[in-house]
């Protein structure tokens, strides 16, 4: 787990209610003190290393459930609630937020929204931005503001829920959120197989798009991390497909998918249910947080996933790979910091591969704080960074929130 040591923090404030949070932000604004919003501190290595001294602004004690009208399938909570506490609260009413994050006993909802972190279930259920229907925050002048509301359908005003999701706390500190929720399906299982090549994997992935099976997650993984867990050699590929629904539905899908795979020449299919499925799922969810000197995330067209993996493998850097293959998202966790230098390796080989597939590449974690240019951290083609900077200036005119860490130019 990351710690605040990766940020240049002199002391950390931990307000216990919303008014105190506003007061704290105001006093920082008055003294022109930079602020680093902190949730569960599980993603502090995301973004550029901080260079300016400032204070930590912890939401740890802002963790109350404000309103949970279960029959309306919405919940309003403070931003510091942990993902596991939220899940537990919702599960009591057979509801959930279908967003999977590692270290859920520490990670907070506010942090997940600020980093727009999404796990394997994004294929079937969408991403966290699809579930935030109301948001409150305090901007860089110490002024609280909100967007959206508490109803599931609402088009009044600009959508601050979207603007703040993924903003890395740079427009304001997120204080409260309203979410729409989903029922928890009664049945869950995972089917897995080992494609014998990247080409074979692409064939199976393309077949899945046209299949009548509607998976919740489509994951393609490779590397020694996975071979220990799933058996096989380090360079084996594993395709894991999660199925959810009623028992009738998952049974039917499992049968259908097995048949489809057998027709494609797959001989060995693993059908995981119960605890076996849970344990494999937990590995898929926790992977991005596993110990690594460098983790990057590429987002490419889904059909480009195997080409991107090939490009990464061609760098000959030892790594583990997890692709949310149905969405075109590939997470690469390197075993060692690149000897040629980080920016050189990323800009030389990995980033061009993502760009060639009409995608982008960002660094998820670089705990050594080793040299990282803006281009290496936020690479992409023709991204309107100036426009984003204009927005930043409107919400945080003195650049007090997470200065120097995000995409602004």
């Amino acid at each position: 787990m990351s710690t605040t040591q990766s940020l240049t923090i002199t002391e950390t404030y931990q307000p216990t209610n919303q008014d105190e949070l506003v007061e704290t932000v105001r006093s920082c604004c008055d003294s022109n003190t930079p602020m680093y919003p902190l949730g569960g501190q599980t993603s502090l290595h995301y973004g550029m290393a901080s260079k300016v001294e400032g204070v930590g602004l912890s939401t740890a004690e802002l963790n109350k459930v404000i309103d949970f009208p279960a029959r309306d399938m919405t919940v309003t909570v403070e931003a510091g609630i942990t993902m596991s506490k939220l899940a537990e609260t919702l599960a009591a009413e057979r509801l959930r937020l279908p967003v999977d994050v590692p270290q859920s006993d520490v990670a907070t909802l506010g942090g997940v929204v600020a980093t727009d972190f999404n796990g394997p279930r994004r294929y079937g259920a969408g991403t966290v931005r699809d579930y935030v229907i109301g948001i409150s925050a305090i901007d860089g002048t110490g002024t609280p503001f909100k967007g959206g509301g508490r109803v599931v359908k609402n088009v009044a005003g600009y959508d601050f829920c979207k603007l703040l999701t993924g903003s890395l706390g740079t427009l304001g500190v997120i204080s409260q959120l309203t979410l729409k929720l989903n029922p928890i399906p009664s049945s869950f299982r995972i089917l897995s197989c080992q494609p014998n090549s990247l080409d074979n994997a692409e064939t199976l992935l393309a077949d899945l798009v046209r299949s009548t099976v509607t998976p919740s997650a489509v994951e393609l993984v490779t590397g020694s991390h996975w071979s220990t867990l799933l058996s096989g050699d380090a360079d084996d590929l594993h395709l894991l497909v999660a199925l959810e629904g009623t028992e009738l539905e998952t049974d039917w899908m499992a049968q259908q998918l097995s048949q489809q795979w057998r027709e494609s020449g797959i001989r060995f299919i693993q059908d995981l249910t119960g605890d076996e499925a849970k344990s494999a799922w937990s590995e898929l969810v926790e992977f991005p947080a596993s110990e690594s000197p460098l983790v990057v995330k590429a987002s490419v067209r889904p059909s480009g996933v195997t080409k991107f993996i090939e490009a990464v493998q061609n760098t000959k850097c030892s790594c583990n790979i997890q692709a949310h293959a149905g969405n075109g998202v590939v997470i690469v966790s390197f075993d060692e910091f690149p000897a040629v230098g980080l920016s050189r390796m990323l800009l030389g080989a990995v980033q061009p591969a993502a760009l060639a597939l009409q995608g982008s590449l960002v660094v998820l974690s670089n705990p050594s704080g080793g040299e990282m240019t803006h281009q290496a951290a936020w690479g992409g083609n023709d991204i309107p960074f100036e426009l984003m900077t204009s927005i930043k200036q409107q919400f945080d005119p003195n650049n007090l929130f997470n200065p120097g860490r995000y995409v602004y130019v």
Partner: protein
Amino acid sequence: MIATSHPGLVNGLRSIVGVDRVLSAHSDLLVYECDGFVIEKNCPDVVVFPDSAEDVSQIVKLCNDVGVPFLPRGAGTSLAGGCLPVGGGVMIVLTRMKEIVELNIRDRYAIVQPGVVNVWLTQALKGSGFHYAPDPSSQGACTIGGNVATNSGGPHTLKYGVTVNHVLGVEAVLADGRIVQIGGPSEDPVGLDLVGTIVGSEGTLAIVTKVWVRLTPNPQGYRTMLGIFESVEDATNSITDIIGAGIIPAALEMLDQGILVALEEAFKFGFPLDAEAILLIEVDGLEAGLDQQRDQIVELCNKCNAREVRQAATEAERQKLWKARKQAFGAIGRLSPSYCTQDGVVPRTQLPFMLKRIKEIAEKYDLKVVNVFHAGDGNLHPILLFDERDKSQVERVLSASGEILQQCLDLGGSVTGEHGIGVEKVAFMEKMFTQDDLAAMTRLRIAFNPENQLSPDKMLPTAGACGMESKHIEQKHPGRRAAM
């Protein structure tokens, strides 16, 4: 007149798009004086029909040079005055940009120009096994550019979400004429979520010139049911019970007695006229799970005292059940010469109370109100019936509408679920949001649109940047409007 005070403008526009694609004669402009919201009217000074993002960019730059306001328009089906040129200026009509640029099934996206009519995309996808999920009831006319501007909904939003959940990226012309691409065929574009910010911004932040939309696999099957209830309360209880049981129907629509009577007179569906409400319920998905869901729904409706639950056994029967819902608005003409539709939202469990309040408010103002709406997501469309020749009725309709929307807010809801703020509901923004919230929205607008020449006087009560005064629009007359 801007055209006369800026003589170079019309010629400049003609040199960008060609002589026949610029309208400036008053008689030609009349068509563009309003959209589906007919209460307020104002002619643009010039209407221009660009062919490309480059055209739009040059038009915008020219407007900035000359110092005239400009705004985009699609098919003009907005029900809230989203396309009303409040202070005149140049209207950029995007209906010539109507190409479906790419359909990509493997990567589940399509690229369309903003003037593509919503239903064209569905038609183009026929046979592919995929569709574009947002389907507003005006989908035969409205454009995808307009859908993006208003974050359109429709009957299937309960399960499939609204437009913003299906837009991967946009190409847009900013207020200063720059062309930017935000997002695209890949997910997770880097940096702030500008796509999510632009979708639903009602044309006030940028002019969208290309859209990457997500395609959704067609469901394997459907089960469609029609529940007939003695009381509105029983019907609304069924709704919460169905969703409480973990079933998310693809559609869950309610029609009350008033609308049933009109439908029966017009189309003879065979509905009992003494029933207070009917629910149209459709589940879709894997065949393997549908019978179970259908049986559960029938049981839950029966538990809530449904008099009868009809089931569609064939596709023809399914279409017949949907026909009742889709023709509801057509039947209203039998009830009254004019009508006004509202677009409030309440938490789903507040529907019984809200419907009771609508009835009380109608009685207080001596008006007839009928209801047909998206019950599953709490989005009400109360239809207030009146005769526009009667001044007193007109005043009462305006007062009753205001009271209904205020009641939605008091219950923690919203004054618009899918039609947008436009000019119609600007006055309600101050009731829904604090001054600080509105100031934050204004700052967002300034970041995109600092001179406030793009779609001025929309959505926000004090939209002005740089000391620009907002032109207050007072609603004097309820319109006869179609609804979702």
